[in-house]
């Protein structure tokens, strides 16, 4: 298989580069390979879009995440503060 063909077929490598790119700068060669691949591959173009959406959503999810009913109960808090006071008085 020619070098170019390999790039065009290799979605595994392209998605790997998409993830790498979201974290650090790609080398020039990697960046070009990814561009060539994405130009011809609608699957990986969808993957790239969704990958960004997932990153953003996960971030928001963690920020806003106060799952209902999972707040600490008052007894636990009261006892915890008591433990702290105890330590302070040691």
């Amino acid at each position: 298989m020619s070098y170019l063909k390999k790039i065009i077929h290799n979605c595994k490598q392209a998605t790997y580069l998409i993830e790498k790119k979201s974290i650090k700068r790609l080398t020039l060669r990697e960046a070009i390979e990814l561009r060539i691949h994405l130009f011809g591959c609608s699957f990986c173009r969808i993957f790239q879009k969704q990958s960004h959406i997932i990153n953003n959503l996960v971030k928001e999810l963690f920020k806003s995440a106060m799952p209902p009913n999972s707040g600490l109960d008052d007894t636990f808090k009261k006892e915890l503060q008591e433990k702290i006071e105890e330590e302070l008085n040691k």
Partner: protein
Amino acid sequence: MLLNPHQWVSSHADYLYSFAITRINDEELAKDLVQETFLAALQKTGSFEGKSSERTWLTAILKNKIIDVYRKKSQGLKIIDNEEKESREVDFFEEDGHWKAEHGPKEFGIEDKDHLVNKEFEHILQKCMQKLPVLWKAVFTMKHIDEEATETICSELKVTASNFWVIIHRAKVNLRACLQKNWI
């Protein structure tokens, strides 16, 4: 900026707890970590320089405790994890690297809407996150949520740099596939 341990629980316990629970998904363990964080903090009040807020300082202590948990869990689960990895490696890709026909990404239908907060979608995303192997989830969270340096993650979780990239890639491929399976 001074520390005020008399107010710690009322000021920070809920925050620290939610910080822990989103990362380790275990209520009892999260409670323990909150408690341990406060007790450890009391032991080292001298190291508080007042450069950051009290909450930031406490959160940093909690973060280290969470990393300990990640490390322990991922070591304890290493064998299972390897098996999981293989079975999970459902192989989304053909030998030549092309997507397998049944795994090719499809539109979710939410791609072009700005900031659409769809509860149902978020819920599925949360479930899919929980399905990731412990180590993958730890790496993913530390990178994408806590925005830690790659070198820090590698040394804290004892993964090699090349393994780090493999995990980052696999975590996303699996997470996305899980969303496609359960959303569409």
